């Protein structure tokens, strides 16, 4: 295998004579996932789904609490603490004293009240849908806020905690906050002063009034370059042009880490939403739990993960939970879920038992006597999914199902899965702070929509009355022990009924180069996820980094 050495030599040579970090000391170069050829000056933090520059929600505007997906804790941020009323219909939040906006004005409870009222007035800004369960937000005094609930809904805490707070004295004069680009942000976060803004690069300097100064942040400024493609972003990381990166890098160990084991590090914890094979349970034979389990057994997940995901994640267990929910994982449920093991013999046996026998040519017949032909729908742009699906289709063909991958345009695929017009399809599961949201999407009857009606989740259209009871109980419980018990029961229900077929949990991309800065989280010091793509968790990292050379 001489050529492999040549390849590495090429790549090493590539970086060897190339860059040179162009930043001044103390200026952190961040490569976040957004890929664009030209930056548009938009720092509106309430518009996360639009083309908003990264710092708006990751470095400028701060929430009350930061949910740390790795530890499962809420880190007090603009708030210092919170307390529920006994009936869980009111939440009192204590705000941090001494916090100032970057123009020097004081941060008070009025700002929090104003922000939530803004969401209620402009529903396009209420991305988390808090007004679906909140009935009012009032300021008790300058440093205390009380949030009233229209119904008991404990999972709502997550959405309230992470809402970015904007200053009333600036935003009250904005006519239409939905289309406002907020070019000169006034915020409470560590980096607020835009000192350079061009279409290819921009820089944001430290907030002179930041509440954690003088200890934090140590970083003087953060700087961004426009990377229009994944390749370009990865090349910048490999060649040392950026310090902190969050995009997918192929074969990262070989092309990045191996070049400088001391400074080049990556950490891809599988804590993002999972990827699943959805079987439409309104159609025969996929309404049969034996069939769904057999399909699952025919899949070689290790190969799926290797070919599709460069081994960056692990095969899913039968609960479908990612590693952020590891503390909820029920060992009994995992042990019972043997249907995620690749086992062609048992898959064949289960299908035979279900009455779907092989006909001539080795292809199984459906109950109406026709050949079992099925298309697995994937969106075209998702190359990792396309690779994974090819492995899955081969596995299904081995057990006598004539399965073919069918790549659709993203919108066609999205329409099909939402409206239930598919037999098999690859799809995602949204990442939720607790398993509650995940299992609600998987098997609550409340999320089941008739075929032909678009459903935002539960594309496989599966619901169980028992799941509804458990989920309802979870919505109203604040006791960790009860929460664990209910979640474990949900997991066993999922494993027994296999509503969907988990493939692998999604990894969170994060890599860093410690030549110029130290203090990044990693597997040894997992104080926060490494990925810069998570808001507001990036604040935890930004305030912890320390430059190697002291700024001038």
């Amino acid at each position, binding site marked *: 295998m001489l050529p492999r050495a040549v390849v590495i030599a*090429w790549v090493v*040579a*590539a970086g*060897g*004579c*190339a860059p040179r970090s*162009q930043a001044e000391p103390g200026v952190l170069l961040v490569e976040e996932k957004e*890929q*664009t*050829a*030209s930056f*548009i000056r*938009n720092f*509106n933090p309430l*518009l*996360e*789904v*639009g*083309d908003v520059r990264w710092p708006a929600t990751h470095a400028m505007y701060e929430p009350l609490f930061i949910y740390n997906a790795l530890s499962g804790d809420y880190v007090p941020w603009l708030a210092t603490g919170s307390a529920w009323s006994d009936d869980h219909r009111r939440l009192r939040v204590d705000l941090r004293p001494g916090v100032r906006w970057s123009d020097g004005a004081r941060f008070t409870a009025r700002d929090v009240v104003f922000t939530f009222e803004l969401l209620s007035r*402009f*529903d*396009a*800004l*209420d*991305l988390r*849908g808090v007004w*679906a369960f909140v009935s009012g937000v009032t300021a008790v005094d300058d440093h205390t806020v009380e949030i009233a609930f229209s119904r008991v809904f404990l999972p709502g805490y997550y959405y309230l905690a992470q809402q970015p707070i904007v200053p009333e004295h600036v935003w009250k004069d904005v006519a239409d906050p*939905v*289309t*406002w*680009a907020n070019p000169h942000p006034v915020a409470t976060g560590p980096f607020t002063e835009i000192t*350079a803004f*061009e*279409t*290819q*690069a921009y820089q944001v300097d430290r907030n002179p009034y930041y509440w954690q100064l003088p200890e934090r942040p140590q970083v003087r400024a953060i700087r961004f*370059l*426009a*990377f*229009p*493609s994944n390749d*370009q972003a990865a*090349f910048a990381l490999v060649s040392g042009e950026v310090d902190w990166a969050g995009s997918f890098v192929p074969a990262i160990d070989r092309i990045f880490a191996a070049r400088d084991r001391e400074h080049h590090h990556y950490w891809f914890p599988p804590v993002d939403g999972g990827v699943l094979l959805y079987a439409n349970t309104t159609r025969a034979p996929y309404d049969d739990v034996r069939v769904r389990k057999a399909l699952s057994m025919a899949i070689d997940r290790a190969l799926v993960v290797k070919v599709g995901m460069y081994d960056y994640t692990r095969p899913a267990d039968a609960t479908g939970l990612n590693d952020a929910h590891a503390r909820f994982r029920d060992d009994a449920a995992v042990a019972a879920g043997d249907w995620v093991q690749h086992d062609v013999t048992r898959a064949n046996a289960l299908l035979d038992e279900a009455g779907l026998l092989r006909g001539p040519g080795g292809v199984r017949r459906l109950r109406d006597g026709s050949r079992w032909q099925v298309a697995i729908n994937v969106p075209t*742009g998702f190359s990792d999914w396309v690779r994974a699906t090819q492995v899955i289709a081969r596995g299904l063909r081995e057990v006598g199902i004539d399965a073919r991958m069918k790549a659709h345009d*993203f*919108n*066609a695929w*999205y*329409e099909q899965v939402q409206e239930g017009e598919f037999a098999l399809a690859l799809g995602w599961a*949204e990442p939720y702070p607790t398993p509650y949201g995940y299992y609600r999407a998987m098997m609550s009857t409340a999320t089941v929509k008739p075929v032909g009606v678009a459903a*935002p*989740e539960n594309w496989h259209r599966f619901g169980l009355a028992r799941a509804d009871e458990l989920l309802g109980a979870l919505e109203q419980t604040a006791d960790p022990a009860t929460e664990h018990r209910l979640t474990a029961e949900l997991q066993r229900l999922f494993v027994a009924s296999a509503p969907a077929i988990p493939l692998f949990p999604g990894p969170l991309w994060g890599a860093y180069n410690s030549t110029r800065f130290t203090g990044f989280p990693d597997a040894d010091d997992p104080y926060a996820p490494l990925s810069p793509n998570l808001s507001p968790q990036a604040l935890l990292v930004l305030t912890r980094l320390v430059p190697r050379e002291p700024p001038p």
Partner: protein
Amino acid sequence: MRYLIRRLAFYLVAAWASVTLAFVIPRLMPGDPEATMFARFHGKLDPEAMAALRRTFGFSDAPLAQQYVCYLGHVVRGDLGVSVSYFPARVGDVIATGMVWTLFLAGLAVALSYALGTLLGIAAAWRRGGWLDAVGPPLFVLLGAFPFFWLAMLLLFLFGFTLGWSPVRHAYDSGVTPALSAQFLWSVATHAVLPAATIVVATVGGWMLDMRNTMMTVLGEDYVTLAHAKGLSPRRVMFRYAARNALLPSITSFGMALGFVLSGSLLTEIVFSYPGQGYLLIQAVRSLDYPLIQGLFLTITLAVLGANFLVDILYVWLDPRARTRSAS
């Protein structure tokens, strides 16, 4: 003058046709572009928030004719709507970020390629049967047969990634502030070398062949024979008599070539991460940003129409026959 007015009328009709095409195509096609556009906000938006956004984008159920009139009004005012992928930026603002760079790159490449190709063509015609005439055309035809973007990938891989001789992205160094300084201009020049070279390499052969063949025809004209007979130096005959007249037909194809090169330049920009319209186009396609796709189509088409009109003016200025012909 009549000639120019006729041309202007043609360009206006062509402009109207492209504006209408941009309106008709999305409405003729199957599928629901509106639903698609919002699909990218998957899971992040509640249905109510989605409905509110939709209103922001101005989707309406008005009759087609009314939509069309409204659309024409917007286009005339230069209002191309709101971009989906750059939400809430307006399409016009998004396009403005890259227009200069695309025009610069495509213009530079066309000019270079035209000048170089024409000179090579003259040289080949000058020494017919010489080595340039023998090797040049097939070599450039071969080079021209490579896809633009593939040549770009190869050059970028060799000179950018592997050898590190050339910048791998952007129109200038990120450390340089745009100003009329030597440092900035130098940075712009070094960043333009590879992308422009790609386009020149791929298109120079066409100009060379064109020029060579026209030269052949012109060299057979009586006035060239007469010039020879008068005993003028061959160099003088070649440049003052033959080449000058051979240039005219190639100027008319200059306008057409601009459209072609612009297309190629878009692809080249994508590979070199050049901050022009090319990457905007691919991003618009991948994120199904229909307003941006339409806006790009319109601005690029109108730019090409404008450039062609300029070429027509140039042509009239250069060729007195065009003036007299229209007068008759």
